[in-house]
């Protein structure tokens, strides 16, 4: 079983092999590529600072493509653990693939540090080898939003729409439960299959329900179509909040154009957060790859730093040694402070910091929590024909 891998790792010559599994082809390749770029960028920086060689051993990243498919993710994990004898795994974009990698890592006793995969249950299994740092459980994406709702907006009724993926379903479920706990009426609650051309029937129906606030979990292009088609229907909720994912991305603004204005969203990260290095990362990435990164890239970037930090502290480069070092992590990254704790049934889960942002004049402004705010929330938002 796992013994073989461990011994091989000990006698490894002068490299510390870290396997990273990301979608580089297939439907999720866009994000996988961004994350790979970000990790490589972080690695370069660490290398320049002499932090990639520890006790004469150099950290070596081995990237594997999971083709956005989970049997490929499984194969990649098997290969990295058994063939390449990595001492640690990282990566995982979609929850599905993250699940599979996490399961494999747990049964082999190899530490796995998740980059993005956000399904709650991944870190709720009591799996000691699985760590989630820069990524939040999907039900926690809305922490800041609820704070904002409770303190300022106090919506009477809401509408929920979400794509019927893992992320969408679990985000919506968490949001729905929070509404019920507060007695907020849900007047419309529907999922959709991503990739639709026309959302108007759903939106027209929702318009009829006349919600105060709309909460939507969508990928980027669906997000932009939804807001554009809301404008076409002249549908005016007092606030439209996205649940991270699509609504904060540069492509969203690009495609939705002026329809993006005043759309709010929860998020884990924006370039304007006050954590040290955040805007540097943003600018550097943009310069290097000619494209603006979003929070996925930041997660990967931060993850690389967490890995380097843990390895620097590890007593030995065995999986167990690294596991121990990870567990003791307490550091700052561009995603904020990272610590792996056990709480609310989670294991090795960082307590995420989340934000509410709003598009204002084509820029994402942090509007909540107040101490991190870069702008003031516009609420209720002006009607489409009054803009």
């Amino acid at each position, binding site marked *: 079983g796992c013994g073989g891998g461990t011994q091989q790792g000990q006698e490894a010559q002068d490299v510390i092999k870290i396997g990273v599994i990301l979608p580089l082809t297939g439907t999720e390749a866009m994000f996988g590529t961004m994350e790979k770029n970000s990790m490589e960028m972080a690695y370069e920086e660490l290398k320049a600072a002499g932090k990639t060689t520890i006790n004469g051993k150099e950290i070596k990243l081995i990237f594997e493509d999971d083709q956005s498919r989970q049997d490929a993710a499984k194969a990649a994990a098997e290969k990295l653990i058994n063939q390449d004898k990595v001492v640690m795994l990282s990566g995982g974009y979609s929850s599905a693939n993250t699940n599979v990698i996490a399961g494999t890592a747990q049964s082999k006793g190899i530490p796995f540090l998740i980059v993005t995969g956000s399904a709650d249950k991944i870190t709720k299994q009591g799996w000691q080898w699985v760590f989630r740092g820069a990524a939040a459980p999907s039900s926690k994406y809305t922490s800041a939003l609820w704070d904002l709702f409770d303190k300022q907006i106090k919506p009477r009724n809401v509408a929920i729409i979400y794509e019927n993926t893992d992320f969408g379903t679990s985000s919506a479920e968490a949001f729905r439960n929070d509404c019920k706990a507060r007695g907020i009426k849900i007047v419309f609650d529907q999922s959709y299959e991503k990739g639709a051309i026309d959302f108007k029937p759903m939106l027209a129906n929702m318009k*009829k329900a006349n919600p105060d606030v709309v909460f939507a979990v969508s990928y980027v292009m669906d997000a932009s179509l939804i807001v*554009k088609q809301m404008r076409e229907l002249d549908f005016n909720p007092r606030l439209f909040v996205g649940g991270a994912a699509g609504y904060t991305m540069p492509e969203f603004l690009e495609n939705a154009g002026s329809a993006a204005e005043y759309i709010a969203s929860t998020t884990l990260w924006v370039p304007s957060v006050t954590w040290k290095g955040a805007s540097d990362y943003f600018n550097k990435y943009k310069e290097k790859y000619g494209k603006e990164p979003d929070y996925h890239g930041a997660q990967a970037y931060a993850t690389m730093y967490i890995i380097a930090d843990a390895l620097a502290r590890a007593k030995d480069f065995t999986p167990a040694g690294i596991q121990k070092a990870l567990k003791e992590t307490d550091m700052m990254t561009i995603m904020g402070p990272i610590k792996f704790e056990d709480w609310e049934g989670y294991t090795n889960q960082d307590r995420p910091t989340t934000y509410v942002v709003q598009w204002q004049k084509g820029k994402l402004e942090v509007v909540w929590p107040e101490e991190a705010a870069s702008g003031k929330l516009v609420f209720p938002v002006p009607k489409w024909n009054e803009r």
Partner: protein
Amino acid sequence: MSLFLQTIICGILLGAMYALIAIGMTLIMGVMKIINLAHGALVMVGMYITYFCFKEWGIDPYLGMFISMPALFLIGCLIQKYLINRLVEVDSILPENQVLLTVGIMLVLTETMRLIFKSDYRSVVTSYSTKTFFLGDISISIPMTFGFLIAMILTWLLHLFLTRTDLGRSIRATAQDRDAAIYMGVNASRITVITFGIGSALAAAGGSLLLPLFYLWPDIGHLFTAKAFIITILGGMGSTMGAILGGLTLGIAESLGATYISMGYKDVVGLIIFLLVLLFLPGGFRSFTRR
């Protein structure tokens, strides 16, 4: 009531968008009987070309159509000539191996585009992308209406082409009995090459017209292939007018499903209609127009 009307209008316009995508397929699958799983990928390539013209030279997507169409015509010709036509000559147990070839082509096209353009989402925003007008409180999208008209015109032209011209008739004849067409002096391999070219060009036209409304990434083709299939069958194989009929039916069914059942189940509604038509109207809606 207004919700119902809005749903129907949305359905009709959406249906027209679907029809745009499917017109090329009515030719390739309906007429030539080539089940082409690469159809959506061809639409996708057409969209990328239009996108590229827009980004590099600022060419409006509606004009970009006149670049993407000839380009796809060429690509389609090459695919038919060097790939699909070669299969015609071999004798295989299941004719479906041709389908698998198109899967291979689909993979190659998709991944090639991914290498060139990366996996990023792209879109073209024009001044008219979200223009609408209102009839009462019913909103109608202008570019979609435009797409609707073009879809009608293209279908009608294709119909005339296939029934009134010798080239069109030769295309149908070759599809039905290749050797017999050769006896008539038809250069069968050239005809199939041209047909696949025209089908691909029509796919590109659909893609270009859709671009300002939608968005683009390499895997978008899957979505289109599935819709185009359903429409071609709904309309009746080989019937050109079927693209419009099938598109509208699918669009309206999906919209009604989205409004009155759930957006998550709208595709199920479309698929069930598809199955019902397969079972009870074997000729598709063509059965109605014929008798």
